[in-house]
C-alpha cells in the first residue's frame, strides 16, 4: 500500500499542479524523484510533525491541496492539536496518509502503534476516513481525495485482504446469508480473517474501506437483529455511529477490534492479531459466543 501511495502521489504531483506533499523525513527517500521534479511542491520539513501539519494548513490557505504523510502515531497522535486548529479551525482540508496502522510496526513497540487514530478523527467533524484493505484500493481513493478540498484521512497498512474491493465507500455484501441473518461488517484488512471466521455460519458479511462517513443507509438495509463490527483499530470505534444509525431498530451489537491497553509486547502483527482476538480463530470465538 505504501508503494502504491508513493507511485500515485508521484503521478498526482505531475498531473495536478494544485497538489503538494508535506513530509517529516518518513518516506522522503522514496519521494525524492518527485521532489526533484517539483521542488516547490514536495516539502520535507525534517522530523517536525507539528510543523508538517502547520505547513499543510498554510498551503491549503493559499489554495493548494496538501498531501501529508508519516507514521500514524506521528501524523495523527502527535499532531492532533495541529489537525484540530491548523486544518479544522482554519476551515481548510488536507489529505493525511498514514502508515503503521495499529501495530504494523509491532516489533518497534508501543511508540509506533496508533490504534486510536480513527477514533481521534471522530472528535473532529467532516473527515472522510479511508481504510483500504488491499493495495489496489489505494490509488482510486487517493485520486478522489486529491480532487477536492475536504479533509481526508487515509490509513494504510501492511495487512491486506487477498482480493481488492475498490469502488465507492458503501457497504458491500461479500457473503450473503438468508433474510434476517446476523450482519458482520469488516473495515479494511480484517475482511479475510472475518470470512474465515464465519465459514459455515449463517452470517451475512459486508465490507467497507470507508468507515467515515459510515454507510448508514447500507447498514439499515442489511442489518437484522444482530450486528457485528470488526475494525482493525480500537474496538468500538464505530459503535456510536452504528447505534445512532439503528436507534429506532431493536438490535444487539458486538464490536470487535484492537483492545485499549498497552500490552508491552513486541512480536509480529500476527501475534498482536491473536492477542487482540482479531485472527480468524479469535473472531470465531467471539462471534460464536455472541450468537449462541
Amino acid at each position, binding site marked *: 500500500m505504501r508503494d502504491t501511495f508513493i507511485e500515485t502521489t508521484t503521478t498526482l504531483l505531475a498531473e495536478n499542479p494544485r497538489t*503538494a506533499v508535506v513530509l517529516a523525513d518518513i518516506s522522503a527517500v522514496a519521494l525524492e524523484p518527485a521532489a526533484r521534479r517539483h521542488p516547490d511542491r514536495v516539502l520535507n520539513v*525534517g522530523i517536525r510533525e507539528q510543523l508538517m501539519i502547520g505547513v499543510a494548513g498554510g498551503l491549503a490557505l493559499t489554495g493548494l491541496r496538501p498531501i501529508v504523510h508519516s507514521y500514524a502515531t506521528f501524523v495523527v497522535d502527535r499532531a492532533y492539536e*495541529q489537525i484540530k486548529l491548523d486544518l479544522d479551525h482554519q476551515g481548510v482540508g488536507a489529505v493525511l496518509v498514514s502508515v503503521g496502522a495499529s501495530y504494523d510496526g509491532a516489533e518497534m513497540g508501543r511508540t509506533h502503534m496508533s490504534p486510536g487514530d480513527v477514533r481521534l478523527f471522530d472528535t473532529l467533524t467532516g473527515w472522510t476516513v479511508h481504510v483500504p484493505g488491499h493495495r489496489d484500493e489505494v490509488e482510486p481513493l487517493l485520486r478522489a481525495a486529491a480532487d477536492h478540498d475536504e479533509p481526508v484521512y487515509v490509513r494504510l497498512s501492511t495487512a491486506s485482504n487477498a482480493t481488492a474491493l475498490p469502488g465507492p465507500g458503501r457497504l458491500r455484501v461479500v457473503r450473503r446469508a438468508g433474510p434476517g441473518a446476523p450482519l458482520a461488517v469488516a473495515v479494511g484488512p480484517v475482511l479475510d480473517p472475518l470470512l474465515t471466521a464465519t465459514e459455515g455460519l449463517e452470517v451475512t458479511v459486508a465490507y467497507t474501506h470507508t468507515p467515515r462517513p459510515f454507510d448508514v443507509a447500507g447498514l439499515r438495509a442489511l442489518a437484522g437483529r444482530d450486528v457485528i463490527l470488526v475494525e482493525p483499530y480500537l474496538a468500538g470505534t464505530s459503535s456510536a455511529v452504528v447505534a445512532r444509525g439503528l436507534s429506532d431498530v431493536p438490535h444487539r451489537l458486538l464490536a470487535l477490534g484492537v483492545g485499549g491497553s498497552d500490552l508491552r509486547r513486541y512480536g509480529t502483527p500476527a501475534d498482536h492479531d491473536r492477542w487482540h482476538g482479531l485472527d480468524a480463530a479469535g473472531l470465531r470465538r467471539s462471534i460464536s459466543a455472541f450468537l449462541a
Partner: protein
Amino acid sequence: MTVTTTTADLSVLDGLLRRVTGDEKHAPSAHSTLDVLWVLYDRILRVTPDTVDAPDRDRFLLSKGHGPAAYYAVLAARGFIPPEWLDDLAGPDSRLGHHPDRLLVPGVEIGSGSLGHGLGLGVGTALGLRAQGLSDPRVYVLLGDAELDEGANHEAIAYAGATGLDRLTAVVVDNRSATHGWPGGIDTRFTVNGWTATTVDGRDHDAIAAALTAHRPGRPHVVVAVVAPKH
C-alpha cells in the same frame, strides 16, 4: 514608502480601541501590539478591504491571538470591519471574540488563540505562494515573546532558516512575559538559524517601519519590537 499616518488617524484609532470593551484581562498584551499593528496596516501590508481574497495580497497572521483589541481596532480603522462590531466584544451575537476567527472576521487570515500555531501556518502560506509563482506577497506573522516558549515555533524557525524562506517576516512583540526569559536576546534564536533580525523600540513608528522593510534576499527576517514589560 508613503507615510500616511496623521494625528487624526491615531485619535480615531484611540477611540476605536476604547470601544472594544470586556477584554480587561488581556489589556496589557493587547496594547503592546498596537503600534506594530498600526505601522503594519498603515505603511507595510499590501492588503485592503477590497483585496482580502486577492491571491497576491500580503498576508498578516496574528499568531498571538489573545488580547486582540488592538487588532480589531486597527481592522476597523482601515475599513475591514464596521466599527459597530467593536461594541459587543465576545457577546452572543458578536463576530469578534477574545481570540479572532478567520471565518467570522473579514481580513483575518487565521483563527488563533492557542499559542504556537501561527508561524507554522505562515511558513506553509509562504511555501504555498511560492509554489504558485506568487513572488510578490510577503507573509508577516506576529508573535509574543512568551509564545516563543511553545516548541512548535522552534520547528518553524529552524526550518524557515534552513530553507532560506525569504518571503517570511516574523514580528515578536517582546513585553518580557516569557516565564524564564530568553537570555542572550530573542533575535539570537532566529539568527543562529539563518534569519536576519532587527530589534527596535516597539513604540517608535519610524523604527518599526524601517525594521519591517529590512529583510534581505535568501533569508527570513524577524523584527523584535520591545515594549514595556507586562505588569
